[in-house]
């Protein structure tokens, strides 16, 4: 095969006549690498390889002094290839590319070898073997570096419009910030109203201000902003394209009424004979088949729930503006946007299938979200907390924390917010009805942010009891329907039997269906917990591995409201860099055709997932359109003649690594 020959006769090395002068920089990363790998021995060995002019060991190669060392040695030794043996190229390649580019070297003349994540950290107890492995890895890099060719990163134009998926508090914040900076924003929400989960909360910790009272004005602000186009009751169906130019297909689900004519007067609901459990109230109370989602909904428009509609047409008669249209079909909009912000939110853990703590078996065990709706003045009971079995006001209320969190049977992670939710709910009930008696059963109380600990202290002062322990047995009294709990008080070291009129489960934050959908549509990574992954957990918390796609809110991990809002703003800030510059830099790695070798067999054309290869009708050879090519190399591997090459991952470059994996030279000698 042609590619094999080219490496074996070393023809490619001599292709350009410039002598390869390689500098190798081995990083100790403090003790992360240096504590395991004998970096000096690695540098010494590498220094003996042909072409290596200088080697250097640094405590931190990425530091100012480490980078200055690289630049100085480039100057001193007139280096033209740089090998950095350090951490992961996924985090640090851009740093060193910029460093060598400053010295006039093409950034693709950098070869990055991972001797930390792939060596020292995983062979911590095998120092000698790790050192030998590091030598092999660096040798592979040195041999590959000799064959690296200069490339130019390309610029793509960025359409200065943004798509925000999800209109909860995080998504709304992103949309508002971008709109206020003058960019057109499309805000897509799958529910009939914007507002997200926050609209359902009664009051929010630690200040206990009314949730809808602070969210409502924000929702109105979003609706009023000329740069924001709200697409409620709509879902993203397809996404194509790349940073700067995403083509997005939006499906508008039919509301079965003309949004332009509907005034939100809700006269239709009054006459509708169908009653179904009200999802906004967590299933407490009922709504009609035609309904306005909630009084503060934006847009304030009705929607028909066709699954439950019996087509009696009473609403059509009642509607004064003749808005009802039963034959409505889904409609579609195609959008072109430069950036996408995903703020698809979360759902709360559902204890029903596992009957955690008797939920679903006993009437008087409810979730914190249900309790929240009972507390709410606009809720099903007008703000009176009653228990489901007999609608009486409970006196003894038990709260169980960490339901669906910190539990190896459900989710191992801490949902972060439930402690504060429970503390707040207990406080609110105590303030409403001081005669009530609350007991919070917890594993640990976690109150890390401003005002949280103070709120915890306040509830203790109010008389809320805290009991460290998890209920081991929950039973219902068949007559009174009270909940009898056996719990180990782990601080007192005794088993206690308690009886509650009502028990509230603080259910954790879990991924919703939207997360799976946008993961597939946008090609994002999902973490083991089912939530989406950010580009870097610390330094790029709202970026993703897909350029131009950002994440805000609970889709990338449990968050409280201030954190979600901060992320919304952060996304807007990150997105603005692209939107304002109107251009994005993309990798120079693409497929390249050698027309002298191409026989026009067209094997490559169906292989390309992006339709980037076409036949040049004049020459009868394949032609790669660089703007469309993403540089995966699928076509390259399929090409039977070797006419296609992937720049920066050329056959000879990869084979140089393969050939040097196993001390080839020493074996041969």
């Amino acid at each position, binding site marked *: *095969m042609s590619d094999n020959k080219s490496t074996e006769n070393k023809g490619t090395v001599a292709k350009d006549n410039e002598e390869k002068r390689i500098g190798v920089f081995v990083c100790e990363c403090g003790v992360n690498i240096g504590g395991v790998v004998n970096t000096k021995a690695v540098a010494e060995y590498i220094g003996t390889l042909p072409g290596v002019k200088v080697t250097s060991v640094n405590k931190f190669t990425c530091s100012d002094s480490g980078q200055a060392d690289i630049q100085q040695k480039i100057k001193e030794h007139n280096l033209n290839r740089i090998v950095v043996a350090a951490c992961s190229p996924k985090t640090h390649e851009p740093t060193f590319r910029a460093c060598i580019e400053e010295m006039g070297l093409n950034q693709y003349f950098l070869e990055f070898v991972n001797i930390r994540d792939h060596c020292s950290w995983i062979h*911590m107890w095998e120092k000698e073997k790790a050192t030998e492995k590091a030598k092999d890895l660096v040798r592979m890099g040195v041999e590959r570096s000799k064959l690296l060719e200069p490339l130019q990163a390309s610029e793509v134009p960025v359409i200065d419009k943004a798509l925000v998926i999800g209109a909860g508090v995080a998504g709304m914040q992103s949309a508002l910030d971008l709109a206020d900076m003058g960019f057109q924003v499309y805000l897509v929400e799958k529910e009939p109203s914007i507002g997200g989960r926050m609209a359902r909360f009664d009051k929010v910790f630690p200040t206990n201000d009314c949730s809808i009272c602070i969210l409502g004005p924000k929702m109105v602000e979003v609706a009023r902003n000329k740069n924001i186009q709200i697409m409620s009751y709509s879902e993203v169906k397809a996404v194509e394209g790349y940073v700067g130019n995403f083509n997005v297909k939006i499906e508008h689900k039919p509301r079965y009424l003309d949004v332009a004519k509907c005034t939100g007067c809700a006269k239709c609901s009054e006459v509708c004979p169908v009653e179904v459990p009200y999802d906004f109230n967590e299933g407490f109370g009922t709504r009609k088949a035609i309904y306005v989602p909630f009084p503060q909904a934006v847009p304030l428009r009705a929607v028909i729930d066709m699954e439950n509609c019996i087509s009696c047409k009473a609403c059509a008669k009642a509607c004064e503006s003749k808005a009802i249209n039963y034959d409505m079909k889904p409609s579609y909009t195609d959008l072109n946007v430069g950036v996408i912000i995903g703020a698809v939110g979360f759902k709360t853990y559902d204890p029903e299938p596992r009957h955690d703590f008797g939920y679903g078996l006993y009437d008087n065990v409810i979730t914190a979200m249900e309790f929240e709706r009972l507390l709410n003045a606009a809720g099903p009971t007008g703000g009176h907390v009653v228990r489901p079995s007999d609608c009486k006001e409970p006196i003894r209320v038990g709260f169980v924390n960490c339901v669906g969190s910190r539990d190896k049977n459900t989710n191992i992670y801490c949902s972060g917010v439930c402690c504060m939710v429970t503390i707040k709910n207990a406080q609110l009930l105590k303030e409403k009805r001081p005669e009530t008696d609350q007991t919070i059963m917890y594993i640990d109380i976690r109150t890390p942010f401003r005002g949280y600990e103070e709120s915890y202290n306040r509830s203790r002062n109010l008389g809320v009891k805290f009991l460290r322990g998890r209920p081991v047995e929950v039973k219902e009294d068949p007559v009174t329907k009270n909940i009898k709990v056996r719990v180990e008080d782990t601080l007192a070291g005794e088993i206690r039997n308690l009886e509650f009129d009502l028990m509230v489960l603080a259910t954790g934050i879990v991924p919703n269906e939207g997360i799976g959908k946008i993961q597939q549509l946008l090609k994002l990574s999902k973490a083991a917990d089912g939530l989406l992954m950010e580009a870097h957990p610390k330094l790029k918390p709202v970026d993703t591995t897909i350029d131009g796609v950002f994440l805000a809110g609970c889709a990338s991990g449990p968050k409280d409201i201030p954190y979600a809002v901060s992320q919304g703003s952060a996304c807007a800030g990150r997105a603005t860099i692209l939107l304002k510059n109107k251009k994005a830099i993309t990798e120079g790695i693409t497929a390249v055709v050698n027309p002298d070798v191409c026989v026009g067999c067209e094997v490559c054309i169906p292989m390309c997932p992006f339709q980037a290869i076409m036949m040049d009708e004049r020459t009868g050879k394949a032609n790669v359109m660089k703007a469309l090519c993403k540089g995966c190399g699928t076509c390259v591997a399929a090409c039977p003649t070797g006419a296609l090459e992937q720049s920066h991952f050329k056959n000879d470059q990869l084979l140089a690594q393969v050939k040097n994996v196993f001390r080839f030279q020493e074996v041969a000698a």
Partner: protein
Amino acid sequence: MNAEHIATSEKEECWVPNILAFACNWCSYAGADLAGVSRLQYPPTVKILRVMCSSRVEPSFILKALKDGADGVLIAGCHIGDCHYIDGNKNAEVRINNTKKALAKLGLDKRLRLEWISASEGLRFSEVIKDFTEEIKKLGANPVKARNEPQINADERRLNASVKASAANVQGSE
């Protein structure tokens, strides 16, 4: 246990397989990074080579690796449906399976593995390496690298031709 026995068992213990892993940039390479960040210890038997997509790996790379001394070759990519390049991993699956069939003729097919490892599966990455290392240890050293060069080159040419042909057939039928 006599001294000879100890010596042999030590020798067996000492033999460390050489595994080359081609890991895709987006999922498996990041998964290997996560294994590192999580300090999940696994044997120093594997060297990871980064490619942008698992579909970049040509059968000839695998043959070259086996010829040059690899006792095992692992190709790791994103899970089906999660490919950064839509369905590159499906192409990789076709190619690797065809290569496996061709390698079966040399009795080397068990030395080639294809695994889907996501960016969040650091634990899975380390488990795969441990498991593959154990399997290769049972198989012993790759017999091909001990054989003479011209014979291997002939084998390689023959295999290259048959793999390319079968890959082209599959592509044609799609």
